[in-house]
């Protein structure tokens, strides 16, 4: 047990080294785009106010009436913040596919070496899963750090008369996108990340099906993905199937969805274990 844990850590560290360049690029892009947003958006706003005041010989109050107060929340609503998040999410999603396929289609066929390591192949599987998750959390942490840096920058650029300092936490709470990235409630945090893990588990299963059965595997994978999604979302469509009869409370519905999500996750792990141990082909 101790030895397999040690091997898992070694392999995860190895995978992290391989991810590092891509991850640092994503982190750099996030910080760079965010920083531009923290500087450009408030400067643009102040520019508009100053132009308005100059052209109309307006007072501060008139400018406030025309433009309202600027808050940090306004910056978080821009593409400078949402853009890198979208890039990060899609980048890591693509990496979750790449993390497997590069072993077969790289310059060298590293799949041979990995599959011939004297360790359980599930250790390999979990090291890849953990690596993607570390990548996700690192990007989330980078975004959080960036917001902490951004708040004082924005408040320094916007003149206090035009600044509505609602605080960093309130700005985050108001943004629906951040509710997924930084859930305030622990159970909600578990749910968001649980769903994330299961999505990855299903994706890994689909990839391993393709690696095991080739073209037939693609069809199997697509069907498996659809079946998994349908099973998890089935309770939400229950009222429609029962002529709009709501027989379950929201809390009961949530419990059923969580249970089904766990079932899909466990099923995906067992299917993947069978495929990687018995069916996979170099």
């Amino acid at each position, binding site marked *: 047990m101790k030895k397999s844990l040690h*091997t898992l850590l*070694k392999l995860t560290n*190895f995978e992290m080294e391989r991810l590092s360049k891509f991850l640092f690029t994503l982190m750099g892009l996030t910080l760079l785009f965010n920083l531009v947003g923290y500087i450009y958006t408030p400067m643009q706003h102040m520019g508009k106010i100053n132009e308005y005041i100059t052209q109309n010989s307006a007072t501060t109050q008139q400018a406030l009436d025309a433009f309202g107060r600027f808050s940090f929340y306004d910056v978080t609503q821009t593409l400078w913040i949402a853009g890198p998040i979208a890039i990060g999410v899609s980048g890591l999603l693509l990496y979750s596919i790449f993390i497997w396929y590069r072993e077969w289609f*790289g*310059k*060298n*066929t*590293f799949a*041979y*070496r990995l*599959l*011939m*390591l*004297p*360790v*359980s*192949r599930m250790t390999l599987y979990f090291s890849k899963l953990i690596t993607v998750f570390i990548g996700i959390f690192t990007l989330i942490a980078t975004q959080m750090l960036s917001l902490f840096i951004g708040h004082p920058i924005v408040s320094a650029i916007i003149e206090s008369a035009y600044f509505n300092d609602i605080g960093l936490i309130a700005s985050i709470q108001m943004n629906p996108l951040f509710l997924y990235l930084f859930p305030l409630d622990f159970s909600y945090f578990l749910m968001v990340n649980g769903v994330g893990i299961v999505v990855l588990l299903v994706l890994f299963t689909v990839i391993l099906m393709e690696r*095991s059965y080739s073209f037939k595997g693609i069809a199997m994978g697509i069907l498996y993905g659809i079946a998994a999604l349908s099973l998890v979302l089935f309770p939400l469509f229950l009222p429609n199937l029962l002529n709009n009869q709501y027989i379950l409370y929201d809390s009961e519905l949530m419990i059923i969805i969580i249970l089904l999500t766990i079932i899909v996750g466990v099923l995906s792990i067992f299917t993947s274990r069978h495929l990687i141990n*018995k*069916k*996979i*082909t*170099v």
Partner: protein
Amino acid sequence: MIELKNVHKSFGRKKVLDGISFTANKGEITCLVGVNGVGKTTILNAIMNLTPIKKGEITIDGEKMSPAMYNKVAFIPDVAIMLPQMTVHEAMEFMKDYYSSWNCKRAKEIVRFFRLNMPDKISELSKGNQAKVNLLMGLALDVDYVLMDEPFSGIDIFTREQITEVFSSRLVEDRGVLITTHEIYDIEHLLDKVVLLDNGVIYKEFNAEEMRETEGKSVVDVMREVYNQ
């Protein structure tokens, strides 16, 4: 002993192996011979559990393949299998990290024998030197069996000579070697057992020494008889 019993394997509708049974013993060099696409590589992959078989059984010293067995059997494929960005030294460190059977002393010996440079990146090596790195990764393991897939494919004559030398050296001494090749001239005199494959079945299996003594035929002579028919 590596033993294959009634092994069947298909790719789609194409039968590649159709009831293959043979053994490869420790201390002997067994050669799988056949034209391209006859299923030689598939057999090695199947032994190493790198491709599933449809039917049959493969055992190594009576045991089925398991992760622990990768410390007992080494496979040297005909493609580069270490990461291209690794240096020879890093590739050796990687092996040392994961294989309890990795023999550092022997690894250094092989590096000297093949005149490889430890700081060289694998991606920057010639095809011949990449083949040598592959051999290094397999031969430096203290294993009972070594499987080699087409070790002479696409390499220059000097590298070929060096690799041939490996077969008569103590690097493979006492081990069971299972090799696939259709370029048999260089190692013919070193072979103990030959298994001729054709259309997914074993066409002929014989002891090379006995064949030379009893029928006065070399392995190449037998191959000519079989494949020129």
